[in-house]
């Protein structure tokens, strides 16, 4: 071993970290190289000095001072063990639980609109253009169920927020307008299909409801525009007055309400459809799936029967839409929001 390699091993040599063979080689190099020997002696001297004079004795009052400070700390034991237990819970689990809690709070709070799920207040007042003051009033008188500009709209049970609809996005009143109690004009949004097929409303008929239906009520027809059934299939070709508002939005609170609605549809010779217009199979509502938006489409002659039955089920009319039929002039469609509120 030459002096260079031996020099690089002096520290290990001093600590006794070399193998016997390596130590012998370093020792031989030290004997052969006086400069290396001097380097080794100086290092050993410095290390010896450090080991001899490095350790110090703590001040006599250090222990007492430490224990005095410790005495001011919270006691250990059961409390600490409980704290440690909670600290051992993974942060991801805490974050997941917090996120789930937020979702639950949002879903259960109908007065808290969110981007993804507007509250019923927004869905009704915003999308349909209902005045909050009107919304706060009592039930409408079914089945005529039309409203004057100042007529109060019924207050309904607040269901969980439905999926955000196009009209909710398009016609949601601005914050400023809400503050001033101004209801945006219903004509602010007109679906494409309405522009193409809208039937002119008749002149004043002497009825308050008919006077105001077109002006005050925003259509929810765009939510029905993709229904792919023809009026004849639904009504058997029965003709109805296009000026008469036949659509109602009704909220019910019953876990089995969809079965009742399906029976009602059958008894009224109509159909139960989901919000997309597809035939719907009734199901029970649960705490997790506690909301549904359905359409009950019946012949006009069955409308009174349906109104009566819906009221018996606990439903209340929220708002009649304008008189523009959804499927033409030969049927009556009820838009029904049902929710299960255990």
């Amino acid at each position, binding site marked *: 071993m030459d002096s260079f390699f031996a020099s690089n091993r002096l*520290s290990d040599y001093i600590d006794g970290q070399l193998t016997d063979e390596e130590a012998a080689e370093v020792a031989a190099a030290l004997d052969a190289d006086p400069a290396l020997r001097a380097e080794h002696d100086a290092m050993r001297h410095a290390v010896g000095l450090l080991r001899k*004079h490095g*350790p110090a004795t703590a001040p006599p009052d250090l*222990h007492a001072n430490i224990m005095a400070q410790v005495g001011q700390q919270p006691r*250990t034991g059961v409390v600490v063990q409980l704290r440690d237990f909670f600290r051992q819970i993974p942060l991801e689990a805490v974050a997941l639980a917090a996120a789930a809690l937020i979702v639950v709070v949002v879903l259960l709070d109908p007065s808290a609109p969110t981007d993804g799920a507007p509250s019923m207040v927004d869905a009704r007042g915003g999308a349909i253009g209902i005045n909050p003051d009107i919304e706060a009033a009592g039930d409408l008188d079914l089945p005529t169920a039309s409203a004057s500009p100042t007529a109060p709209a019924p207050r309904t049970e607040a269901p969980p927020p439905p999926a955000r609809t196009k009209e909710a996005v398009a016609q949601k009143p601005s914050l400023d307008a809400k503050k001033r109690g101004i209801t945006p004009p219903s004509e602010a949004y007109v679906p494409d299909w309405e522009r193409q097929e809208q039937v002119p409303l008749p002149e004043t008929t002497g009825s308050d409801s008919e006077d105001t239906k077109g002006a005050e009520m925003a259509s929810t027809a765009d939510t029905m525009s993709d229904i792919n059934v023809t009026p004849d299939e639904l009504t058997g070709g029965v003709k109805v007055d296009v000026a008469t508002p036949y659509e109602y939005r009704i909220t019910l609170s019953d876990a089995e309400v969809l079965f009742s609605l399906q029976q009602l549809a059958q008894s009224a010779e109509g159909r139960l459809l989901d919000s997309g217009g597809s035939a719907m199979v009734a199901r029970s509502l649960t705490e997790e799936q506690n909301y549904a938006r359905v359409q009950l489409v019946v012949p006009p002659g069955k409308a009174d029967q349906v109104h009566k039955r819906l009221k018996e089920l606990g439903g209340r009319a929220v708002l009649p839409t304008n008189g523009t039929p959804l499927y033409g002039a030969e049927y009556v469609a009820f838009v029904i929001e049902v929710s299960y509120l255990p």
Partner: protein
Amino acid sequence: MLFALLAMAGAEADEALVRRFKRGDQTAFSTLVTRYQDRVYSQCLRWMGDPRIAEEVSQDIFLAVYRALPRFRGEARFSTWIFRITVNHCKNRRLYRKRRHTDRHDTIHPDPRDEDRPVRQIPDQGPGTERGVEQSEASEILHEALAALEESQRTIILLRDIQDLSYDEIAQILDLPKGTVKSRLHRARGELARVVSRNLGTSDVFD
């Protein structure tokens, strides 16, 4: 051999004390303080260079140990764990003092590596020079020599030559490969020897 056995017994006792402490036995912590206060204080003193600051930092360290001990899982030896806390506290305090320009190493003493600084006129007595130097003066020389080292070098040399920790323990405390510990220790000792030799007026074998 006896020291190794005592050290092993001490390590086991440390774990038992930690368990007692976790069960709420405050006297167990007092025993740990008694057992480690000199070593922690020595590390702080040789790092900070100021007995008053070293005492303050030592108190802070044991307070931190007290607070963190319930979370100590015993995956490392208690001695390794407490020296890791000690090293971190010393580094933090040094940074704090440097920002406030109150570091004794930087303000009171001239750089021991400065070639123009006055050399102590102590006759060279060979490897046994420390025998002829008064205890306080030896301690002062040592302090100046340590202050001349880089922090990484000083940390390693203190853990090895004052705390008598193994290479593996030092590697664990500093989170370094064992080879890095060896090489840094070698350079630190060489630098320390250079500064000590110059301060003692002995022949400089490194020039």
